[in-house]
């Protein structure tokens, strides 16, 4: 594997940490654009707590491009797919209606 090229960054409050052993990736915690302005006016009786819009609050990863296409791909990179929590359960004969709101289909 080629040596990763580190991108210099001047991001303030940067938390730089190498992630993924051997990966040419460096994580930088950055100030993110947070849209929290979805409040809709209404009467007190009708008022529901405003929902925040989604936040780009995941750690942004700066990464240097690598042209090493011959590098053997493997999935032993440190980033793993996390399983569902232990309280996940499979049901027999569930009475919950199956509908588009709660059904996973391919798309």
């Amino acid at each position, binding site marked *: 594997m080629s040596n990763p090229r580190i991108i210099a960054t001047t991001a303030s409050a940067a938390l730089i940490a190498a992630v993924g052993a051997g990966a040419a990736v460096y994580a930088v915690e950055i100030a993110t*654009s947070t849209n929290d302005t979805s409040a809709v006016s209404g009467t007190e009786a009708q008022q529901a707590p405003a929902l925040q819009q989604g936040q780009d609050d995941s750690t942004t990863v700066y990464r240097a491009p690598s042209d090493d296409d011959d590098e053997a791909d493997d999935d032993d990179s440190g980033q793993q797919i996390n*399983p569902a929590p232990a309280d996940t359960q499979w049901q027999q004969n*569930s009475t919950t209606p199956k509908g588009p709101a709660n059904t996973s289909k391919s798309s």
Partner: protein
Amino acid sequence: MISVSLQTWKTDLVLSARAPATPRMETVLRQLLTDEVQRLDALASRFRPDSELSTVNSRAGHWVEVSWGFVAVLSACLSAAERTGGLVDPTLGTAIKAAGYDEWADQPTLTAASAQRGHWRGVGIRPGRHEAQVVIPAGTALDLGSVAKAWLADRLAHAVARSGYEVCANMGGDIRVIAQAPWTVWADPELPGVPAAAITLTDAGLATSGTGRRRWSTGHHIIDARTGRPAATPWHTVSVVAASAAEANTAATAGVILGGEGPGWMTAKGLDARFSSPTDTITTHRWPQEVAA
């Protein structure tokens, strides 16, 4: 319980919350869903010439100014590539177009079958003049469709949960639940006579990938990054439960691509999955065989 839905991207997007079913709440949920869908479309649609993704694709080989929002979606897709050793690769835009998936159409335009392998390691992200810059290898194109809907499901679920409501976000089959009490969701194998599996989640994702939809005479939309061609797979659908919708989607897509090796790969990772074909059903880890049968 209240649900709002939106039909776009040739699928159904549904956002449900355990909240009072008031007109006010419906308005707020619908606005959130609509705004986020429009935002993602403007960031990452391959079919909009004015999207940030189209700009990056049109300037492959050059650094391009993008927004943090685009970086967030792209980072999720690169994470999927890293988690799967490049099986789920966001740089397959040229390959998927070559395979015939050129528009949101039932009969995609057939184009030259110039299959191209993935080059996700060639994607760069660095600070920009305003927000960030991205570069993709010359001759490649991004397609973030594999992970983007699941990423949106996670994003919407977190947005609603932060406001104190239990939530289920279903973005065309990529589902994320964040709830205190168990929330029942269904994994449909999309095979005649094979029942859907009912699963209760509290904080997890469920996704199903398959070759039955977005399919045409020359192939389907799930590209094997190792060959640049539609994956040769026996599986009609693969459903996975994982910690998030994005992770479930990533694993499900990898399971389709890996074909016969998929169940072993899933088992090695300790993931709960069901592989369904017209002649066979295989489940892994905690996914009970009796439910799938």
